[in-house]
């Protein structure tokens, strides 16, 4: 139920996966929309407030998720050997891009030593600031890494659908029901 096995995912992994998926899509859409807002728009201040609060929440969740993933067994990958190699590389890259997007975003707002408020509840302090052109360069990384993440996430979705539908595996079901299903 809680722990992962070679056959399926436990509740924490499943929850963290879907929460990340929802947050990644929301943050991407919100980020794109809010950077096009004009100075006099109602959401000019609120958009970034939500984006930063949600983004840092996702960063915290991702660190938890990585720790849990490393502590727990990983269900075996589906597909033939080259598909498994590609799947592992893809999953690794998804984690790398997730961290790249969130860390670069953090480095934009903290470039001059200011912390970032999370829902007004507490502030994440600046750890690295005053690097040359920090906010601008971190902004470029943030933009391109976010795009790469979304493109890779679409590939990830298509691959999962392929295993589930074409290969008739339990790929989607085991990321929904804890412990895996009978169809394997």
């Amino acid at each position, binding site marked *: 139920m809680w722990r992962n096995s070679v056959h399926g995912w436990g509740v924490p992994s499943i929850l963290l996966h879907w929460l990340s998926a929802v947050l990644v899509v929301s943050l991407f859409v919100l980020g794109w929309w809010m950077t096009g807002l004009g100075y006099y728009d109602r959401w000019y201040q609120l958009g970034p407030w939500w984006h930063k609060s949600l983004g840092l929440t996702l960063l915290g969740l991702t660190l938890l998720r990585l720790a849990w993933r490393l502590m727990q067994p990983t269900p075996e990958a589906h597909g033939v050997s080259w598909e498994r190699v590609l799947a592992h590389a893809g999953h690794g890259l998804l984690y790398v891009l997730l961290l790249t997007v969130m860390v670069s975003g953090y480095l*934009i707002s903290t*470039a001059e030593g200011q912390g970032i408020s999370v829902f007004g509840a507490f502030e994440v302090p600046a750890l690295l600031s005053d690097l040359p052109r920090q906010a*601008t360069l971190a902004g470029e990384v943030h933009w391109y890494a976010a795009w790469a993440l979304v493109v890779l996430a679409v590939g990830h979705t298509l691959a999962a659908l392929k295993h589930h539908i074409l290969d008739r595996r339990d790929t989607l079901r085991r990321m929904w029901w804890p412990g895996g299903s009978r169809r394997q």
Partner: protein
Amino acid sequence: MFSKSLLKTATSAALGAAVLLPMAQANAADYKIDSEGQHAFIEFKISHLGYSYVLGTFDDFTGTFSYDPDAPEASSANVEVDVSSLHTAHAERDKHILSDDFLNASEYPTATFESTGFESTGDGEGELSGNLTLHGETQPITIEVDHIGGGDDPWGGYRNGFEGETTLTLSDFGIDTSKLGPTASTVDMHLVVEGIRQ
């Protein structure tokens, strides 16, 4: 008698000129702006919504000037500013100002000022005119300059300091501030420059 006195006058005039000329030259000096010691400041002030102001600085710039208290008209100045050193104590705002929405610092990383003339209005004050290149566009501007003071410094050098003020219309430099509201079309510049004689 007549020719003798003429000769005398000519001689004394030549002598006088010979004595005065080196003195005048000794007073004209080249100065380097004390960027290292950070005794120089470029500050700006721009309206925020018409309700208040945003204040900021350009932290990194270098320059030289020439100054002669006896012949202020011969003064000149050259300054080169690293645009991305803009600082308003808010990282996201600075990133936005430096983006291609406004200053486009990636495309135009340097702003320069080259003086073309100085007109003294007396009492150590005057108008320094020159060409300012900002956002890739060069426009003539005039800076109201005030000599603050000068003399030996405590560390064996010799310094002169000036304060300057000017107002820039940003659209003259191809910078569109219309989205910031009608009060943000101009920016007030305040300059404090201390030079060390070379």
